[in-house]
């Protein structure tokens, strides 16, 4: 459904008065998502996961590489030709408090995409809004239609955001941290809801998150991103239960599990902060924080994704050796 081929996204950033530096937000990513499936993109802030999501929606134009939507190469399409694509691909954003207009009521918020795309007459649109609100279980829909965002809880607002994305019957949805602003007790509710709707309408989903634990339950494949590159990708049972890349291992160790003995021991964490993507790096991007025994390659060459087990790919020199 969605295919990226060696996509690169460099931003120019000014440094001082005359100098510009190149920030390699995405540096050579190839990945695809099958129709009706969910790919979770997991990584820290600044790892480029949001940028990658925007690239798949053509909200950004890549510096190099190609983006395909079904068989359509959307990399260089002009905006006028993108209109039908824009209807078929939608986004759900992180912050339900700031991504919906506070002066519009729920009905208007959900109806707006239909008006923009000139779909249906007023009566048909009302019917569609009603259906969408039912889908996200904001019922009775009559009551919710007239409410304004400030009258809703965080979970309810996020459901308005989902209804708004669904009303155009998209085939592809990017959800960027859809539950990170929501209480832990309601997160599973939103994720279950999205999963059900996805199955019902056969939607392809890119689920962007820093929480690998939720990705385990709601994704068909997990891609771990670090500093603009995918370091490990595979089905959840492989990536979560048998992680290979040292970064994935550390990321998993950081997930809190309810256990009263936790307070007596420190967690194994990735020390320090992620490197600045503006700094030029020749070697593996994780090299500066990696605690494994390093070899020369780590400092001088970038590892590429290598298949270790069926469907399980890892970009790490140390693991290449294990295999042979």
């Amino acid at each position, binding site marked *: 459904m969605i295919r990226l081929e060696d996509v690169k996204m460099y931003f120019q950033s000014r440094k001082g008065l005359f100098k510009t530096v190149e920030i390699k937000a995405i540096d050579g990513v190839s990945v695809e998502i099958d129709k009706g499936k969910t790919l979770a993109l997991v990584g*820290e*802030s600044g790892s480029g996961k949001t940028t990658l999501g925007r690239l798949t929606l053509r909200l950004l134009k890549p510096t190099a590489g190609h983006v395909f939507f079904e068989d359509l190469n959307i990399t260089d399409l002009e905006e006028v030709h993108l209109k039908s694509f824009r209807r078929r691909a939608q986004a759900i954003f992180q912050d339900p408090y700031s991504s919906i207009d506070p002066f519009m009521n729920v009905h208007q918020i959900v109806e707006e995409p239909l008006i923009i795309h000139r779909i249906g007459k007023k009566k048909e649109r009302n019917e569609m809004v009603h259906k969408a609100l039912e889908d996200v279980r904001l019922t009775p829909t009559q009551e919710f239609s007239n409410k304004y965002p400030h009258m809703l*809880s*965080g*979970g*309810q607002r996020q459901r308005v955001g989902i209804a708004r994305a669904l009303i155009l019957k998209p085939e592809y949805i990017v959800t960027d941290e859809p539950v990170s602003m929501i*209480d*832990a*007790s*309601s*997160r*599973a*509710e939103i994720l*279950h809801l999205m999963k059900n709707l996805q199955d019902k309408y056969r939607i392809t989903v890119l689920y962007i998150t*820093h*929480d*690998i*634990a*939720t990705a*385990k*339950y709601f994704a068909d494949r997990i891609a771990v991103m670090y500093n603009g590159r995918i370091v490990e990708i595979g089905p959840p049972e492989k990536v*979560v239960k048998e992680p290979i890349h040292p970064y994935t291992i*550390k*990321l*998993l*160790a*950081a*997930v*809190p*599990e*309810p*256990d*009263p003995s*936790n*307070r007596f021991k*420190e*967690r194994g*964490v*990735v*020390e320090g*902060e992620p490197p600045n993507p503006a700094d030029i790096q020749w070697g593996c991007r994780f090299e500066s924080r990696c605690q494994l025994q390093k070899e020369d390659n780590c400092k001088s060459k970038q590892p590429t994704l290598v298949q270790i087990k069926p469907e399980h790919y890892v970009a790490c020199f140390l693991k290449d050796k294990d295999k042979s």
Partner: protein
Amino acid sequence: MKLLEVKNLKLYYQSTRGTVKAVDGISLDLAKSEALGIVGESGSGKTSLSLALMRVLPSNIDTNEGKVILDGKDITQLSEEEFRKEIRWNTISMVFQGAMNSLNPVLKVGHQIAEPMLLEKTVNKKEAYKKSEDLLEMVGLPKEIFNRYAHELSGGMKQRVMIASALILNPKLVILDEPTSALDVSIQAQIMNLLKRFKKELDISMIFITHDIALSSDLCDKLAVLYAGEIIEKGTAEQMFGKPKHPYTQLLLASIPGLKQDASPKFIPGAPPDLTSPPTGCRFHARCPYRFDPCDKKPPPAFKIEKDHLSRCWLNEGDKK
């Protein structure tokens, strides 16, 4: 030796919709160098509770009563001036929610850490700055950060700065209100490790406020679960994670997407009640899967399950010992 004892604390706000009973009769205690977790959903009153302890209250207060006993002394009796001099930041300090966005953008962070000490006027600038530098090192930042400005730091670094500033006057109790809620899991784990280390080495007590019950197990010796302004269950970490008694606590634990188990995480349907008119009977009854006859009529008292373990649920009536 008990450091802090809160007895029947109430904090009501006035609003256009009526009186909001944000904190409605809360009692808890905390020993020296112990960490207490306060867990609850948004709107359960956990932040109001901490604001009441720090006495930083908005102007629309309706009722503020109950006792807060610190080191054997009822601090609710102190005048505002005495409270400011003796308690706030000296004895009880706080890392506020989203505090990392409250750093002053035009002051060097080192100066901001030292500010409470400079206002005290008991030490000179040089000493205060020295202490500020030492604290930066303690929270795992290089000394050079002293001369940096807030926009030059990442979220995790700013949160470390806020922790340093809470420690500058050597408080006995630090209240941490969702100190990691805006951070990535890996930075969150770093901050939790840091807090764990401080608890052990500096001998300070902590109140850790969070909506994430799994995270509280990383630090807390005791746990109190807050629902609609009331504590519905409290106990030691072993009791609360090992054999939680209240259905709400059990559901909170089941909503955690764990890495080890395979069962898909559950959720608690519905939303917390409106605190202007809390439900009759048990405040959780409308969302509770186990509700039976008395639940919507009589509010359950806190049943004692074992030593230190209390649960406010009619199901636990028989467990009373």
